């Protein structure tokens, strides 16, 4: 068992000791003894800041034999049209980096129906082994057969780490299978590294991105992590060298209670994730008509308009154009924020953009902390002038 032991004798100031816990989990019990309560999130701040009054005691049994778990596996996802979701390729690039540090192979898992083109693609992106589950019963994502396929792979191959794209289906599949193996899953990692012990160092935002947490799965394998699209860079294509291993599932493991009645494609619209340049409408924009000015700027920059949550909630823009933790994560080459204050939930969805330009009247706005180029000024003067200048430059060419 592991727990936090409270050394009452080392506590000089009880109120200060209680205040150490950001979650209010340090409290006095009926006997006036300080205890760690149910609110504990194991952030260990009390251990680090408590001057020895709080001790982490860990006498739990040793975990699995990590040497028996080899390989960094990437679960790829087929879209309903049969193409590969690009997050899988980004993860293959990261998996190669991680696997090289511990000399493990990179594995790709392909689950679907009619997967040949996808198998070729993942081979070209450097997988050492491609494990394929191809069956008409896997044509649509349905949780039971997909979870059975991934579980079958884990039972057969014993990978050390399993990386899954943080897509809608990935965030459905990964937890289901992680629970089946009674192992750890870290959602929406933004940084991954590999320690020599083969423990995956996972860093993820919590509290809307206001806190970063470094998380390990020290005693269990495999260790699951999900990563959203566009967090990691797309690797370069190379000469295929990997082997293909085909697996089959029995009929009962392919069965599902979920019946897919229809897959409807939504009207095609270029998403803000694909745009190379974005102009973002924030609360500093006063009227819905003024979005037009930002649209013009976006068009001149060859990009799209996007917005903060407040603007979507006001009904000025479609939710698909919302950047941030409750919207989309974007990583364009250029992003120009107009009248955006830079709430951390927003910033978490765009701070990997290559060049960030911020226009805001308030010099103290937190957007300027992440901006590479800051313009303290009124967007109603700056943007029209900028549009005029860009037009002049384009005409001069």
């Amino acid at each position, binding site marked *: *068992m*592991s727990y936090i032991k409270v050394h009452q004798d080392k506590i000089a100031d009880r109120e200060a000791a209680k205040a*150490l816990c*950001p979650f209010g989990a340090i409290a006095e019990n009926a006997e006036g003894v300080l205890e760690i*309560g*149910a609110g504990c*999130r*194991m952030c*260990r*701040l009390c251990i*680090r800041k408590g001057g020895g009054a709080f001790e982490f005691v860990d006498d*739990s049994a040793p975990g699995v034999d990590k040497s028996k778990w080899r390989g960094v596996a990437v679960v790829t996802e087929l*879209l*309903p049209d049969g193409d590969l979701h690009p997050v899988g390729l980004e993860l293959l690039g990261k998996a190669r980096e991680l696997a090289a540090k511990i000399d493990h192979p990179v594995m790709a898992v392909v689950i679907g129906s009619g997967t040949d083109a996808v198998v070729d693609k993942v081979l070209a992106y450097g997988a050492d082994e491609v494990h394929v589950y191809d069956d008409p019963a896997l044509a649509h994502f349905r949780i039971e057969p997909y979870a059975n396929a991934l579980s079958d792979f884990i039972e057969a191959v014993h990978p050390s780490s399993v990386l899954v794209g943080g897509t*809608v*289906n990935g*965030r*459905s599949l990964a*937890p*289901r299978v992680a*629970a089946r193996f009674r192992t*750890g*899953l*870290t*959602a*929406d990692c933004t940084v991954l590294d590999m320690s020599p012990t083969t423990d995956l160092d996972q860093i993820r935002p*919590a*509290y*809307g*991105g206001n*806190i*970063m*947490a470094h*998380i*390990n799965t*020290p*005693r*269990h394998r495999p260790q699951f992590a*999900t990563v959203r699209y566009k967090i990691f860079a797309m690797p370069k294509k190379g000469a295929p060298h990997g082997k293909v291993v085909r697996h089959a599932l029995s009929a009962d493991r392919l069965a599902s209670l*979920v019946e*897919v*009645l*229809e*897959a*409807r494609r939504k009207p095609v619209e270029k*998403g803000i994730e694909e745009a190379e*340049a974005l102009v973002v409408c924030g609360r500093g924009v006063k009227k819905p008509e003024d979005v037009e000015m930002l649209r013009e700027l976006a068009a001149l*920059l060859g990009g799209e308009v996007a917005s903060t949550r407040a603007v979507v909630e006001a009904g000025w823009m479609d*939710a698909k154009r919302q950047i941030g933790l409750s919207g989309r994560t974007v990583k364009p080459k*250029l992003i120009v924020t107009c009248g955006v204050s830079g709430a951390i939930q927003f910033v978490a969805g765009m701070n990997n953009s290559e060049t960030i330009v911020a226009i805001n009247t308030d010099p103290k706005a937190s957007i300027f902390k*992440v*901006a590479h*180029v*800051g*313009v303290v*000024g009124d967007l109603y*003067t*700056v943007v029209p*002038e900028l549009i005029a200048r860009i037009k002049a*430059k384009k005409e001069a060419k």
Partner: protein
Amino acid sequence: MKILVCIKQVPGTTQVEIDETTGTLKRDGVPAKMNPFDLYALETALRIKKETGAEVTALTMGPPQCEKVVREAFMMGVDRGVILSDRAFGGADVLMTSFTLAEGVRKTGPYDLIICGKQTTDGDTAQVGAEMAEWLGIPHVVNVKSIDRLEADAISLTVDLPDYEMAERIPYPCLMTVEKGIFEPRLPSYRLKCATADREITWLALGDLGDKDPKHYGLNGSPTQVKRIFPPESHVEHVMLEGDDREKAAKLADLLEERKFLQ
């Protein structure tokens, strides 16, 4: 029909900051509230209740003060409340949270339909629902954007994917997580507040559950460990353009041209 909705009390704001010098969290005293995504789950359950006459139970896990969110659920029209609260449940990661909730379901169920919000605003993992379904051995779907048809033994719904909508039919028992916007959540009603003020809530501690081994809960059972928490980094290199607004705009246009954004 019996419906269970999982709800959670979260900090009133996510605007928590870490003091860079001491490494401690700065709290601002904003009171805790119901996870906003759970309101959509509650509303979905209450709409189904209106059509089918289902009984709706709200389940939560947390320190004793989380009773507040169950009371709030009563004010929206929920019939029963269950709270899982025990020191042994503290420090739970996704696996242990989902296990404890599943134990609560086993103790107070069975339920035909379990509805969860898309995610919480504090943990943001969006994965507890799927893990719960695995513990309970029932199918699940995530990101449900509409309920299309209710039958005696199954539910038809639409799952929202970025480029597709999937119309699906699932027999009970099953679990689903709903998108925000599936229905507009109702406000708590004063009439229901008065009517439910004395309604009893089922409190479950470790000793009340089927699995009573403290090693299977909370921190002890959690495979993930938080090594440390720290503030997000912010870019230090940046230029602020000088001049009046028009001059700044001119400088920005030059800069965009230099960096080849005008091609």
